[in-house]
Protein backbone atom coordinates (compact mmCIF):
# COMPACT_ATOMS: atom_id res chain seq x y z
CA UNK A 1 0.00 0.00 0.00
CA UNK A 2 2.74 2.40 1.01
CA UNK A 3 4.56 1.52 -2.18
CA UNK A 4 1.60 2.74 -4.23
CA UNK A 5 1.45 6.03 -2.42
CA UNK A 6 5.15 6.56 -2.91
CA UNK A 7 4.79 5.79 -6.59
CA UNK A 8 1.88 8.20 -6.90
CA UNK A 9 3.93 10.83 -5.11
CA UNK A 10 6.81 10.34 -7.49
CA UNK A 11 4.60 10.71 -10.55
CA UNK A 12 2.46 13.57 -9.28
CA UNK A 13 4.20 15.88 -11.74
CA UNK A 14 3.03 13.67 -14.55
CA UNK A 15 -0.54 14.04 -13.34
CA UNK A 16 -0.09 17.80 -13.26
CA UNK A 17 1.47 17.88 -16.72
CA UNK A 18 -1.27 15.78 -18.32
CA UNK A 19 -4.02 17.86 -16.75
CA UNK A 20 -2.28 21.00 -17.93
CA UNK A 21 -1.80 19.56 -21.39
CA UNK A 22 -5.44 18.52 -21.74
CA UNK A 23 -6.69 21.94 -20.77
CA UNK A 24 -4.19 23.77 -22.93
CA UNK A 25 -4.79 21.64 -25.99
CA UNK A 26 -8.56 21.53 -25.74
CA UNK A 27 -9.05 25.03 -26.99
CA UNK A 28 -5.78 25.58 -28.80
CA UNK A 29 -6.23 26.78 -32.37
CA UNK A 30 -9.78 27.87 -31.67
CA UNK A 31 -10.44 31.53 -32.06
CA UNK A 32 -12.12 32.19 -28.76
CA UNK A 33 -10.02 29.70 -26.81
CA UNK A 34 -10.89 29.22 -23.17
CA UNK A 35 -13.99 31.40 -23.60
CA UNK A 36 -15.67 28.32 -25.02
CA UNK A 37 -15.87 26.84 -21.53
CA UNK A 38 -18.50 29.51 -20.83
CA UNK A 39 -19.93 29.93 -24.26
CA UNK A 40 -20.64 26.29 -24.88
CA UNK A 41 -22.93 25.70 -21.87
CA UNK A 42 -24.41 29.16 -22.26
CA UNK A 43 -25.44 28.56 -25.86
CA UNK A 44 -26.64 24.99 -25.38
CA UNK A 45 -28.71 26.07 -22.40
CA UNK A 46 -30.32 28.82 -24.44
CA UNK A 47 -31.17 26.27 -27.12
CA UNK A 48 -32.62 23.87 -24.56
CA UNK A 49 -34.62 26.62 -22.88
CA UNK A 50 -36.11 27.57 -26.22
CA UNK A 51 -36.86 23.98 -27.19
CA UNK A 52 -38.06 22.57 -23.90
CA UNK A 53 -39.06 25.71 -22.03
CA UNK A 54 -42.46 25.80 -23.65
CA UNK A 55 -43.01 22.08 -23.73
CA UNK A 56 -41.92 20.90 -20.35
CA UNK A 57 -41.06 23.91 -18.30
CA UNK A 58 -44.48 25.45 -18.70
CA UNK A 59 -46.57 24.37 -15.77
CA UNK A 60 -43.81 24.86 -13.28
CA UNK A 61 -42.31 27.99 -14.75
CA UNK A 62 -44.42 30.15 -12.48
CA UNK A 63 -42.80 28.77 -9.37
CA UNK A 64 -39.56 27.61 -10.82
CA UNK A 65 -36.77 29.39 -12.51
CA UNK A 66 -36.52 27.11 -15.50
CA UNK A 67 -33.27 28.37 -17.10
CA UNK A 68 -31.34 28.00 -13.84
CA UNK A 69 -33.02 24.66 -13.16
CA UNK A 70 -31.96 23.41 -16.56
CA UNK A 71 -28.45 24.81 -16.40
CA UNK A 72 -27.78 23.07 -13.06
CA UNK A 73 -28.64 19.70 -14.53
CA UNK A 74 -26.97 20.40 -17.80
CA UNK A 75 -23.61 21.39 -16.30
CA UNK A 76 -23.44 18.35 -14.05
CA UNK A 77 -24.50 16.03 -16.85
CA UNK A 78 -21.91 17.56 -19.19
CA UNK A 79 -19.18 17.02 -16.65
CA UNK A 80 -20.26 13.43 -16.17
CA UNK A 81 -20.48 12.51 -19.83
CA UNK A 82 -17.37 14.39 -20.95
CA UNK A 83 -15.11 13.22 -18.18
CA UNK A 84 -16.12 9.58 -18.46
CA UNK A 85 -15.82 9.60 -22.24
CA UNK A 86 -12.38 11.16 -22.10
CA UNK A 87 -11.25 8.80 -19.38
CA UNK A 88 -12.55 5.89 -21.46
CA UNK A 89 -10.32 6.81 -24.38
CA UNK A 90 -7.36 7.91 -22.29
CA UNK A 91 -5.52 4.59 -22.13
CA UNK A 92 -5.87 3.93 -25.83
CA UNK A 93 -4.82 7.46 -26.69
CA UNK A 94 -1.70 7.16 -24.58
CA UNK A 95 -0.74 3.83 -26.09
CA UNK A 96 2.49 5.21 -27.52
CA UNK A 97 3.72 6.20 -24.08
CA UNK A 98 2.43 3.19 -22.18
CA UNK A 99 4.10 0.84 -24.63
CA UNK A 100 7.51 2.42 -24.25
CA UNK A 101 7.91 3.91 -20.82
CA UNK A 102 6.82 2.75 -17.41
CA UNK A 103 4.18 5.09 -16.01
CA UNK A 104 1.41 4.41 -13.50
CA UNK A 105 -1.39 3.86 -15.98
CA UNK A 106 -4.22 5.08 -13.80
CA UNK A 107 -2.72 8.56 -14.21
CA UNK A 108 -4.37 8.84 -17.62
CA UNK A 109 -8.03 8.29 -16.67
CA UNK A 110 -7.45 10.24 -13.46
CA UNK A 111 -5.88 13.18 -15.28
CA UNK A 112 -8.69 13.26 -17.82
CA UNK A 113 -11.34 13.39 -15.13
CA UNK A 114 -9.41 16.13 -13.33
CA UNK A 115 -8.90 18.24 -16.44
CA UNK A 116 -12.59 18.01 -17.31
CA UNK A 117 -13.33 18.88 -13.70
CA UNK A 118 -11.26 22.04 -14.00
CA UNK A 119 -13.13 23.21 -17.09
CA UNK A 120 -16.37 22.27 -15.33
CA UNK A 121 -15.44 24.50 -12.41
CA UNK A 122 -14.70 27.34 -14.82
CA UNK A 123 -18.05 26.79 -16.52
CA UNK A 124 -19.78 27.20 -13.15
CA UNK A 125 -19.16 30.91 -13.66
CA UNK A 126 -21.97 30.77 -16.21
CA UNK A 127 -24.25 29.48 -13.49
CA UNK A 128 -23.19 32.32 -11.20
CA UNK A 129 -23.97 34.79 -13.98
CA UNK A 130 -27.35 33.16 -14.64
CA UNK A 131 -28.27 33.26 -10.98
CA UNK A 132 -27.12 36.87 -10.64
CA UNK A 133 -29.09 37.87 -13.72
CA UNK A 134 -32.32 36.24 -12.53
CA UNK A 135 -31.88 37.62 -9.02
CA UNK A 136 -32.04 41.08 -10.50
CA UNK A 137 -34.42 40.81 -13.42
CA UNK A 138 -36.75 37.90 -12.80
CA UNK A 139 -39.92 37.70 -10.70
CA UNK A 140 -39.16 34.11 -9.67
CA UNK A 141 -35.78 34.53 -8.18
CA UNK A 142 -33.52 31.61 -7.34
CA UNK A 143 -33.56 31.22 -3.58
CA UNK A 144 -29.98 31.76 -2.52
CA UNK A 145 -29.31 30.90 1.10
CA UNK A 146 -26.20 29.87 3.00
CA UNK A 147 -26.95 26.33 1.83
CA UNK A 148 -25.36 27.32 -1.46
CA UNK A 149 -22.02 26.57 0.17
CA UNK A 150 -23.01 22.91 0.44
CA UNK A 151 -22.84 22.66 -3.35
CA UNK A 152 -19.38 21.18 -3.02
CA UNK A 153 -20.96 17.98 -1.64
CA UNK A 154 -22.83 16.89 -4.80
CA UNK A 155 -19.89 18.08 -6.90
CA UNK A 156 -17.47 16.00 -4.84
CA UNK A 157 -19.69 12.92 -5.06
CA UNK A 158 -20.02 13.37 -8.79
CA UNK A 159 -16.24 13.53 -9.10
CA UNK A 160 -15.89 10.20 -7.31
CA UNK A 161 -18.56 8.67 -9.53
CA UNK A 162 -16.89 9.92 -12.71
CA UNK A 163 -13.51 8.61 -11.66
CA UNK A 164 -14.98 5.20 -10.87
CA UNK A 165 -16.88 4.98 -14.14
CA UNK A 166 -13.85 6.32 -16.01
CA UNK A 167 -11.59 3.60 -14.63
CA UNK A 168 -14.07 0.88 -15.53
CA UNK A 169 -14.62 2.23 -19.04
CA UNK A 170 -10.94 2.79 -19.79
CA UNK A 171 -10.26 -0.84 -18.89
CA UNK A 172 -13.15 -2.12 -21.02
CA UNK A 173 -12.13 0.09 -23.92
CA UNK A 174 -8.71 -1.57 -24.11
CA UNK A 175 -10.27 -4.98 -24.63
CA UNK A 176 -13.48 -4.11 -26.45
CA UNK A 177 -13.62 -1.06 -28.59
CA UNK A 178 -17.37 -1.53 -29.00
CA UNK A 179 -17.87 0.00 -25.61
CA UNK A 180 -17.19 3.40 -27.10
CA UNK A 181 -20.26 3.26 -29.31
CA UNK A 182 -22.43 1.61 -26.70
CA UNK A 183 -21.49 4.21 -24.16
CA UNK A 184 -22.40 7.05 -26.51
CA UNK A 185 -25.90 5.65 -26.75
CA UNK A 186 -25.98 5.09 -23.01
CA UNK A 187 -25.07 8.74 -22.37
CA UNK A 188 -27.84 9.91 -24.62
CA UNK A 189 -30.29 7.73 -22.74
CA UNK A 190 -28.93 9.03 -19.47
CA UNK A 191 -29.58 12.59 -20.58
CA UNK A 192 -33.27 11.83 -20.96
CA UNK A 193 -33.80 9.65 -17.92
CA UNK A 194 -32.12 12.18 -15.68
CA UNK A 195 -34.47 15.04 -14.88
CA UNK A 196 -32.42 17.72 -16.61
CA UNK A 197 -34.91 19.33 -18.95
CA UNK A 198 -37.97 18.25 -16.93
CA UNK A 199 -38.71 17.55 -13.30
CA UNK A 200 -39.64 14.15 -12.00
CA UNK A 201 -42.89 15.46 -10.53
CA UNK A 202 -44.07 16.47 -13.99
CA UNK A 203 -43.99 12.90 -15.16
CA UNK A 204 -46.72 12.08 -12.62
CA UNK A 205 -45.49 8.54 -12.39
CA UNK A 206 -48.15 6.31 -10.88
CA UNK A 207 -46.20 3.12 -10.97
CA UNK A 208 -43.95 2.69 -7.94
CA UNK A 209 -41.45 0.68 -9.91
CA UNK A 210 -41.12 3.25 -12.66
CA UNK A 211 -40.47 5.79 -9.95
CA UNK A 212 -37.84 3.58 -8.37
CA UNK A 213 -36.04 3.12 -11.63
CA UNK A 214 -35.83 6.86 -12.02
CA UNK A 215 -34.62 7.27 -8.48
CA UNK A 216 -32.01 4.55 -8.83
CA UNK A 217 -30.03 6.80 -11.14
CA UNK A 218 -27.28 8.28 -8.96
CA UNK A 219 -27.03 11.25 -11.27
CA UNK A 220 -30.60 12.11 -10.32
CA UNK A 221 -29.67 12.25 -6.64
CA UNK A 222 -26.61 14.34 -7.38
CA UNK A 223 -28.47 16.79 -9.60
CA UNK A 224 -31.27 16.96 -7.04
CA UNK A 225 -28.85 17.84 -4.25
CA UNK A 226 -27.11 20.41 -6.39
CA UNK A 227 -30.38 22.14 -7.18
CA UNK A 228 -31.34 22.09 -3.53
CA UNK A 229 -28.20 24.05 -2.74
CA UNK A 230 -28.04 26.40 -5.67
CA UNK A 231 -31.62 26.99 -6.71
CA UNK A 232 -34.04 26.12 -3.93
CA UNK A 233 -31.89 27.17 -1.00
CA UNK A 234 -32.67 24.05 0.98
CA UNK A 235 -30.70 21.64 3.06
CA UNK A 236 -29.71 18.68 0.89
CA UNK A 237 -31.79 15.56 1.24
CA UNK A 238 -29.92 13.09 3.41
CA UNK A 239 -31.26 10.05 1.55
CA UNK A 240 -29.99 11.35 -1.74
CA UNK A 241 -26.69 12.11 -0.10
CA UNK A 242 -26.23 8.65 1.38
CA UNK A 243 -27.42 6.83 -1.72
CA UNK A 244 -25.27 8.71 -4.21
CA UNK A 245 -22.23 8.66 -1.96
CA UNK A 246 -22.52 4.92 -1.41
CA UNK A 247 -23.11 4.31 -5.11
CA UNK A 248 -20.14 6.46 -6.12
CA UNK A 249 -17.74 4.93 -3.64
CA UNK A 250 -18.80 1.43 -4.67
CA UNK A 251 -18.27 2.34 -8.33
CA UNK A 252 -14.85 3.73 -7.54
CA UNK A 253 -13.93 0.58 -5.63
CA UNK A 254 -15.05 -1.60 -8.53
CA UNK A 255 -13.16 0.66 -10.94
CA UNK A 256 -9.93 0.45 -8.95
CA UNK A 257 -10.16 -3.32 -8.62
CA UNK A 258 -10.89 -3.94 -12.32
CA UNK A 259 -8.22 -1.51 -13.42
CA UNK A 260 -5.58 -2.87 -11.06
CA UNK A 261 -6.32 -6.45 -12.10
CA UNK A 262 -6.16 -5.82 -15.80
CA UNK A 263 -3.55 -3.09 -16.18
CA UNK A 264 -0.64 -5.46 -16.78
CA UNK A 265 -2.49 -6.84 -19.80
CA UNK A 266 -3.10 -3.42 -21.38
CA UNK A 267 0.18 -3.42 -23.22
CA UNK A 268 -0.70 -6.59 -25.10
CA UNK A 269 -3.91 -5.11 -26.45
CA UNK A 270 -3.32 -1.46 -27.18
Amino acid at each position, binding site marked *: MKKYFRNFY*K*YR*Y*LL*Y*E*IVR*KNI*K*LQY*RDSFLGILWTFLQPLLTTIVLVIVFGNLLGKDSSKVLNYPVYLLCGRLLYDFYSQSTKRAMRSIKNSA*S*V*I*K*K*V*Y*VPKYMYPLANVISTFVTFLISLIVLVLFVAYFMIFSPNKPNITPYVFLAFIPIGILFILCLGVGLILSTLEV*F*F*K*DIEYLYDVFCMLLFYVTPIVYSIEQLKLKNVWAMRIFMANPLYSIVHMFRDCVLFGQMININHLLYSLAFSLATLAVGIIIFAKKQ*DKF*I*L*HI
Partner: protein
Amino acid sequence: MAQPAIKVENVSVLFNLNNEKIDNLKEYFIKLVTRKLHYNEFWALQDISFTIEKSDRVGVLGFNGAGKSTLLKVVSGVLKPTKGKVEVHGVIAPMLELGAGFDMNYSGRENIYLYGATMGYPRKYIQERYDEIVRFSELEKFIDVPVKNYSSGMKARLGFAIASAVEPEVLILDEVLSVGDAKFKKKSEQKIISMFDKGVTVLFVSHNTEQVRRICNKAIILDKGKLIAQGEVNEICDKYIELAAEKKK
Protein backbone atom coordinates in the same frame (compact mmCIF):
# COMPACT_ATOMS: atom_id res chain seq x y z
CA MET B 1 29.28 -4.58 -1.71
CA ALA B 2 26.73 -2.39 -3.39
CA GLN B 3 23.54 -3.87 -4.76
CA PRO B 4 23.56 -4.76 -8.42
CA ALA B 5 21.86 -2.19 -10.62
CA ILE B 6 19.72 -4.70 -12.47
CA LYS B 7 18.90 -8.21 -11.41
CA VAL B 8 16.91 -10.42 -13.74
CA GLU B 9 15.83 -13.76 -12.31
CA ASN B 10 14.34 -16.59 -14.35
CA VAL B 11 12.31 -14.25 -16.48
CA SER B 12 9.95 -15.72 -19.06
CA VAL B 13 7.45 -13.89 -21.22
CA LEU B 14 4.58 -15.58 -22.97
CA PHE B 15 2.84 -13.95 -25.89
CA ASN B 16 -0.46 -14.98 -27.30
CA LEU B 17 0.11 -14.66 -30.99
CA ASN B 18 -3.38 -14.32 -32.29
CA ASN B 19 -3.26 -13.40 -35.88
CA GLU B 20 -5.51 -10.45 -35.37
CA LYS B 21 -6.08 -8.42 -32.30
CA ILE B 22 -9.47 -9.14 -30.79
CA ASP B 23 -10.99 -5.88 -29.80
CA ASN B 24 -14.65 -6.31 -30.25
CA LEU B 25 -17.25 -8.38 -28.51
CA LYS B 26 -18.47 -10.28 -31.52
CA GLU B 27 -15.05 -11.62 -32.38
CA TYR B 28 -14.36 -12.43 -28.78
CA PHE B 29 -17.44 -14.59 -28.48
CA ILE B 30 -16.88 -16.29 -31.79
CA LYS B 31 -13.36 -17.17 -30.78
CA LEU B 32 -14.46 -18.20 -27.31
CA VAL B 33 -17.06 -20.55 -28.72
CA THR B 34 -14.76 -21.95 -31.36
CA ARG B 35 -11.96 -22.22 -28.77
CA LYS B 36 -9.48 -20.32 -30.81
CA LEU B 37 -8.65 -17.89 -28.08
CA HIS B 38 -5.44 -19.44 -26.89
CA TYR B 39 -3.91 -21.04 -29.88
CA ASN B 40 -0.48 -20.06 -31.02
CA GLU B 41 1.24 -19.21 -27.79
CA PHE B 42 4.84 -18.27 -27.97
CA TRP B 43 7.61 -17.73 -25.43
CA ALA B 44 9.41 -14.51 -26.30
CA LEU B 45 11.80 -14.97 -23.41
CA GLN B 46 12.61 -18.23 -21.68
CA ASP B 47 14.16 -18.41 -18.25
CA ILE B 48 16.55 -15.51 -18.59
CA SER B 49 18.76 -14.69 -15.61
CA PHE B 50 21.59 -12.22 -15.35
CA THR B 51 22.91 -9.55 -13.08
CA ILE B 52 24.30 -6.18 -14.05
CA GLU B 53 26.52 -4.43 -11.53
CA LYS B 54 26.50 -0.68 -11.12
CA SER B 55 28.32 1.20 -13.90
CA ASP B 56 28.49 -1.86 -16.12
CA ARG B 57 27.66 -1.22 -19.74
CA VAL B 58 26.01 -4.25 -21.22
CA GLY B 59 25.38 -4.74 -24.91
CA VAL B 60 22.44 -6.92 -25.89
CA LEU B 61 23.06 -8.74 -29.15
CA GLY B 62 20.73 -10.97 -31.07
CA PHE B 63 19.09 -11.52 -34.40
CA ASN B 64 15.69 -10.18 -35.30
CA GLY B 65 13.00 -11.71 -33.13
CA ALA B 66 15.45 -12.90 -30.51
CA GLY B 67 13.58 -11.07 -27.77
CA LYS B 68 15.90 -8.09 -27.30
CA SER B 69 13.19 -5.46 -27.23
CA THR B 70 11.00 -7.64 -25.05
CA LEU B 71 13.86 -7.93 -22.59
CA LEU B 72 14.28 -4.17 -22.47
CA LYS B 73 10.56 -3.72 -21.96
CA VAL B 74 10.64 -6.14 -19.05
CA VAL B 75 13.64 -4.39 -17.49
CA SER B 76 12.10 -0.95 -17.86
CA GLY B 77 8.87 -2.13 -16.25
CA VAL B 78 6.62 -1.63 -19.26
CA LEU B 79 5.92 -5.33 -19.59
CA LYS B 80 5.35 -7.62 -16.66
CA PRO B 81 7.10 -10.97 -17.07
CA THR B 82 4.86 -14.02 -17.12
CA LYS B 83 7.30 -15.73 -14.77
CA GLY B 84 10.30 -14.60 -12.80
CA LYS B 85 11.16 -11.18 -11.52
CA VAL B 86 13.22 -8.12 -12.25
CA GLU B 87 14.82 -5.84 -9.71
CA VAL B 88 16.13 -2.46 -10.68
CA HIS B 89 17.90 -0.13 -8.30
CA GLY B 90 18.12 3.46 -9.40
CA VAL B 91 16.31 5.82 -11.71
CA ILE B 92 15.78 4.40 -15.17
CA ALA B 93 15.66 6.52 -18.29
CA PRO B 94 14.30 4.35 -21.04
CA MET B 95 15.11 5.37 -24.55
CA LEU B 96 13.18 2.58 -26.14
CA GLU B 97 11.85 4.76 -28.84
CA LEU B 98 12.79 8.37 -28.66
CA GLY B 99 9.91 10.73 -28.63
CA ALA B 100 7.34 8.15 -27.59
CA GLY B 101 6.23 10.37 -24.73
CA PHE B 102 5.65 13.39 -26.94
CA ASP B 103 2.30 14.89 -27.66
CA MET B 104 2.18 15.82 -31.30
CA ASN B 105 0.10 18.96 -30.79
CA TYR B 106 2.40 20.27 -28.12
CA SER B 107 5.37 22.46 -28.96
CA GLY B 108 8.92 21.27 -28.38
CA ARG B 109 9.20 23.44 -25.30
CA GLU B 110 6.05 22.02 -23.72
CA ASN B 111 7.05 18.51 -24.64
CA ILE B 112 10.31 18.84 -22.74
CA TYR B 113 8.37 19.23 -19.51
CA LEU B 114 5.84 16.57 -20.43
CA TYR B 115 8.54 14.06 -21.28
CA GLY B 116 10.39 14.91 -18.10
CA ALA B 117 7.24 14.30 -16.08
CA THR B 118 6.67 11.01 -17.89
CA MET B 119 10.02 9.91 -16.51
CA GLY B 120 9.02 11.19 -13.08
CA TYR B 121 10.92 14.48 -12.94
CA PRO B 122 9.40 17.69 -11.60
CA ARG B 123 9.01 20.80 -13.68
CA LYS B 124 11.64 22.68 -11.69
CA TYR B 125 14.22 19.98 -12.23
CA ILE B 126 13.65 20.10 -15.98
CA GLN B 127 13.70 23.88 -15.95
CA GLU B 128 17.25 23.86 -14.63
CA ARG B 129 18.30 21.68 -17.53
CA TYR B 130 16.12 23.31 -20.12
CA ASP B 131 18.86 25.35 -21.82
CA GLU B 132 21.16 22.39 -21.96
CA ILE B 133 18.45 20.25 -23.55
CA VAL B 134 17.65 22.83 -26.21
CA ARG B 135 21.31 23.44 -26.98
CA PHE B 136 22.09 19.76 -27.26
CA SER B 137 19.14 19.04 -29.51
CA GLU B 138 20.03 22.04 -31.72
CA LEU B 139 16.38 22.99 -31.98
CA GLU B 140 16.60 26.59 -30.78
CA LYS B 141 14.71 27.88 -33.78
CA PHE B 142 11.96 25.29 -33.69
CA ILE B 143 11.33 24.95 -30.00
CA ASP B 144 7.92 26.64 -30.16
CA VAL B 145 6.74 24.70 -33.19
CA PRO B 146 4.31 21.82 -32.58
CA VAL B 147 6.16 18.51 -32.58
CA LYS B 148 3.87 17.16 -35.31
CA ASN B 149 5.79 19.40 -37.70
CA TYR B 150 9.16 18.01 -36.65
CA SER B 151 11.10 15.58 -38.78
CA SER B 152 11.80 12.20 -37.23
CA GLY B 153 15.42 13.19 -36.75
CA MET B 154 14.39 16.31 -34.85
CA LYS B 155 12.10 14.29 -32.61
CA ALA B 156 14.82 11.79 -31.90
CA ARG B 157 17.30 14.56 -31.13
CA LEU B 158 14.91 16.19 -28.69
CA GLY B 159 14.09 12.86 -27.07
CA PHE B 160 17.75 11.97 -26.68
CA ALA B 161 18.59 15.41 -25.32
CA ILE B 162 15.92 15.14 -22.63
CA ALA B 163 16.61 11.56 -21.63
CA SER B 164 20.36 12.20 -21.34
CA ALA B 165 20.03 15.53 -19.53
CA VAL B 166 18.19 14.12 -16.54
CA GLU B 167 21.23 12.13 -15.37
CA PRO B 168 19.60 8.77 -14.92
CA GLU B 169 21.31 5.97 -13.04
CA VAL B 170 20.27 3.33 -15.53
CA LEU B 171 20.10 4.09 -19.22
CA ILE B 172 18.25 1.77 -21.57
CA LEU B 173 19.09 2.27 -25.21
CA ASP B 174 17.25 0.47 -27.99
CA GLU B 175 19.03 1.23 -31.23
CA VAL B 176 18.66 4.91 -30.51
CA LEU B 177 22.13 5.64 -31.75
CA SER B 178 21.12 4.67 -35.23
CA VAL B 179 18.90 7.70 -35.67
CA GLY B 180 19.92 11.12 -36.82
CA ASP B 181 22.74 12.11 -39.09
CA ALA B 182 26.35 11.11 -38.63
CA LYS B 183 27.18 14.27 -36.76
CA PHE B 184 24.43 13.81 -34.20
CA LYS B 185 25.20 10.12 -33.88
CA LYS B 186 28.74 10.96 -32.93
CA LYS B 187 27.62 13.66 -30.55
CA SER B 188 25.18 11.40 -28.76
CA GLU B 189 27.72 8.62 -28.50
CA GLN B 190 30.12 11.06 -26.88
CA LYS B 191 27.39 12.18 -24.54
CA ILE B 192 26.75 8.63 -23.44
CA ILE B 193 30.43 7.96 -22.95
CA SER B 194 30.71 11.13 -20.87
CA MET B 195 27.95 9.75 -18.65
CA PHE B 196 30.06 6.70 -17.87
CA ASP B 197 32.28 8.84 -15.67
CA LYS B 198 29.29 9.48 -13.46
CA GLY B 199 28.82 5.76 -13.09
CA VAL B 200 25.74 5.24 -15.23
CA THR B 201 24.63 1.70 -15.92
CA VAL B 202 23.78 1.04 -19.54
CA LEU B 203 21.76 -1.60 -21.29
CA PHE B 204 22.30 -1.19 -25.00
CA VAL B 205 20.64 -3.02 -27.87
CA SER B 206 22.27 -2.94 -31.26
CA HIS B 207 23.11 -5.00 -34.28
CA ASN B 208 26.26 -3.03 -34.75
CA THR B 209 29.10 -4.87 -33.00
CA GLU B 210 31.50 -1.98 -33.62
CA GLN B 211 29.27 0.31 -31.65
CA VAL B 212 28.79 -2.25 -28.92
CA ARG B 213 32.54 -2.66 -28.58
CA ARG B 214 33.00 1.09 -28.30
CA ILE B 215 30.32 1.63 -25.69
CA CYS B 216 30.04 -1.53 -23.65
CA ASN B 217 32.33 -3.52 -21.41
CA LYS B 218 30.11 -6.57 -21.25
CA ALA B 219 27.61 -8.20 -23.56
CA ILE B 220 24.99 -10.90 -23.79
CA ILE B 221 23.55 -12.77 -26.75
CA LEU B 222 19.92 -13.71 -27.02
CA ASP B 223 18.68 -16.24 -29.50
CA LYS B 224 15.05 -17.28 -29.86
CA GLY B 225 14.25 -16.06 -26.38
CA LYS B 226 17.14 -17.78 -24.68
CA LEU B 227 20.28 -16.37 -23.20
CA ILE B 228 23.04 -18.22 -24.99
CA ALA B 229 26.14 -16.32 -23.95
CA GLN B 230 27.33 -13.63 -21.60
CA GLY B 231 30.72 -12.20 -20.75
CA GLU B 232 33.34 -9.67 -21.77
CA VAL B 233 32.37 -7.54 -24.70
CA ASN B 234 35.07 -8.52 -27.19
CA GLU B 235 34.70 -12.20 -26.59
CA ILE B 236 30.92 -12.04 -26.98
CA CYS B 237 31.07 -9.84 -30.05
CA ASP B 238 33.43 -12.29 -31.73
CA LYS B 239 31.04 -15.06 -30.90
CA TYR B 240 28.14 -13.11 -32.28
CA ILE B 241 29.97 -12.52 -35.56
CA GLU B 242 30.71 -16.24 -35.73
CA LEU B 243 27.04 -17.03 -35.13
CA ALA B 244 25.98 -14.57 -37.78
CA ALA B 245 28.36 -16.18 -40.25
CA GLU B 246 26.96 -19.62 -39.44
CA LYS B 247 23.41 -18.43 -40.00
CA LYS B 248 24.30 -17.13 -43.42
CA LYS B 249 25.41 -20.54 -44.62
